[in-house]
């Protein structure tokens, strides 16, 4: 009995040591991303069968290829991403790889959190990515990561609602849209809107700031001076742009309770939305998707132009496994498969429903990128203008959002709101430029 116990104990010790030994030999990478749900786990059909791969499946594929590398995925909600970076840095448990919004790039680069890719990858980015994406990943004049996603905006409308009111085509100009929005709005007998002709989304900076920037640029205005020392929001063009938005409120085409998230429930007829919303619409509308969803360029005042943002993948400067992290990113974002696409491109197009930034991915996914939703977004990339990557960008965008929302509420005129925004933004810019 005693002997058997001794042998069992020895075996246990050997097994523990062996397991520990194997784990110690592995390089463990942590990848942090704002993606969640199907974007991470993939899309499955009603029988639970995987229809299109999520990030996890690609990571597993890489781990099979490189058994000495283990990658952990950390999903962080978008609104908490920046503070997660901050807290994990303070706690000394930073991830190795980030997929971040370019807007945060200046702060992260200034603080030495992120580092530039190896020269070969920089060359690859310069050569193989669309210029707007390269601009997005360029922070303080340096390429700081590999563009993952470019996002621009279009008008998404409900074809059935428009047809119901006799409209054969979506609005082409902003004035047409204002007129159509009020006619498409349905109210109950108490005056409450039961179906919005048009809807913004207050409370989320991108949803407020990006449509406004599109209009501002359309009017010929600018967000910031070229040296980033001054905000130019309260220019006559800026005021006209905000007035154009306010017209939707004044004519009853929308109100302050409207939400873009109610489009899949068919409670909104028109929204200005980004390309990544495709899968949510498909899931929300189910069989009605093709019957309902239409996409068009944002109705213009002077010229078609829409705001654009970028996400890029990069590596923490404090990572102990920088080489392995960049190796994984190179495999994931730059190595082409038999279809002449990258794995990241496949994930973006087939699962997430977003627009990839690499030229070959844009060229070699004709089926998905030319579908009824994404095609217009791709076409409109030529009219897209990247949001500026400036210091304290998140804070500045929040200020602009709050002031625009004040004007929506009628608490301030367009001029007052933009004068206040300009004053506050200038004070911040003066700290950095």
């Amino acid at each position, binding site marked *: 009995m005693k002997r058997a116990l001794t042998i069992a104990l020895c075996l246990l010790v050997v097994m523990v040591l062996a397991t520990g030994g194997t784990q110690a030999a592995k390089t463990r990478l942590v990848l942090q991303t704002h993606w969640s749900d199907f974007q991470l786990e993939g899309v499955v059909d009603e029988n639970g069968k995987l229809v299109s791969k999520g990030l996890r499946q690609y990571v597993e594929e890489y781990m099979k290829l490189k058994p000495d590398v283990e990658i952990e995925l950390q999903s962080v909600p978008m609104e908490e991403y920046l503070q997660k970076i901050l807290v994990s840095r303070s706690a000394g448990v930073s991830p190795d790889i980030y997929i971040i919004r370019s807007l945060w790039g200046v702060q*992260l680069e200034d603080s030495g959190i992120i580092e530039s890719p190896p020269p070969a990858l920089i060359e690859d980015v310069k050569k193989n990515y669309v210029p707007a994406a390269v601009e997005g990943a360029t922070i303080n004049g340096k390429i700081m990561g590999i563009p993952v996603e470019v996002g621009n905006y279009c008008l998404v409308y409900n074809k059935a609602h428009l047809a119901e009111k006799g409209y054969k085509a979506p609005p082409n100009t902003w004035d047409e849209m204002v007129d159509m929005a009020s006619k498409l709005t349905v109210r109950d007998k108490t005056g*409450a809107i039961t179906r919005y002709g048009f809807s913004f989304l207050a*409370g989320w*900076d991108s949803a407020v700031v990006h449509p406004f920037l599109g209009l501002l640029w359309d009017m010929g205005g600018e967000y910031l001076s070229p040296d980033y020392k001054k905000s130019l929001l309260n220019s006559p063009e800026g005021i006209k742009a905000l007035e154009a938005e306010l017209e939707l409120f004044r004519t009853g085409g929308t109100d302050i309770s409207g939400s873009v998230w109610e489009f899949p429930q068919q409670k909104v007829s028109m929204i200005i939305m980004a390309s990544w919303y495709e899968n949510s619409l498909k899931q929300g509308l189910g069989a009605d998707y093709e019957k309902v969803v239409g996409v068009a360029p944002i109705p213009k005042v002077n010229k078609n132009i829409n705001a654009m943002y970028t996400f890029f993948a990069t590596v923490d400067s404090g990572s102990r496994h920088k080489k392995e992290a960049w190796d994984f990113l190179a495999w994931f974002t730059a190595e082409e498969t038999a279809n002449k696409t990258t794995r990241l491109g496949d994930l973006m197009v087939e699962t997430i429903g977003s627009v990839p930034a690499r030229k070959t991915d844009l060229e070699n996914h004709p089926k998905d990128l030319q579908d009824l939703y994404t095609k217009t977004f791709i076409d409109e990339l030529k009219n897209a203008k990247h949001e500026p990557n400036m210091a304290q960008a998140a804070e500045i965008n929040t200020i602009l959002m709050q002031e625009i929302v004040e004007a929506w509420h009628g608490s301030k005129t367009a001029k007052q709101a933009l004068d206040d925004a300009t004053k506050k933004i200038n004070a911040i810019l003066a700290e950095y430029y």
Partner: protein
Amino acid sequence: MSGLPSESSRRRSVQRTVTGYLFLSPAIVFYLIFLIIPVGMSVYISFRKWNMLVPLSSSTFIGLKNYQDLFRDELFLCAVKNTLIWAIGTVFLGMLIALVIALLILNIRWAPFWRFLVFAPVVTPLVAVARIWGSGIYKTSGGMLNSILAMWQLPPQHWLADSRIALFSIMSVAIWASIGSTVIVFTAGLKGIPDEYYQAAKIDGASPWHEFRHVTLPLLRPTILFLSVTGLIGAWQAFDLVFQMGAGGTQSGVSAVKAIILLNVYLYQTAFQNLRMGRATAGAFVLFLIILCFTFVVLRVLREGGVESYE
């Protein structure tokens, strides 16, 4: 020979002191680590420009600029005003309603059942409370309150989006969610008042109002003081409900962020979204001073007329 006893007694005294401090040392270490050092660090940080992304040693000393910027920030002043309204509203209005409910429950049948009913929201998670009220009761289109208004042919309201009423809408939820515990404390206070006082008042011909005014209310002073002080401290630190119901901002769709922002939400956003740790820490000190002043005022007001147990 005469020096020996005094030497040994001095040694004993030193030993006693050392032993005493040794017994105290866990508590001293605890307070040092979790109170004194963090407070000291906070004072230090409040005079510096620091974004937490770099080591504190790389931060810059900027004197009182964080405090100056704070009082120039329109959003901070909004947050102070909103929190003041929130504190007074939720604490004093909540106490008034709770006292009425406690008095009613004390005098009706099935008191335990009613107490349970009133207490139920207290044990409901605030996230669930926020969701039920935000997406159900307060929803503009098809929400419960607007349906009731519609029955009376009244126009619908944007309960959470209209900056004139959004704060009061959330305050109502806060009162509803916390009133149960206030009712329980008041019930205990009411039960602690001896019957003899009421009997004596009746003999003297006091009306129910006079009984309440001259017997119940004075004898409830310690309870009111306790609820006021703890309630005010809690109210100035309110965060979760207002964050969940819209001030958290992102994707919430609630547009009246400025109208509902409270101090703690402002501090959170300043520190973790705008990465201005120095200014946020300065704001935390202002919050500390406000709570201190409020507590002092409440103690002074309620001590007048005698609340012996708090002297």
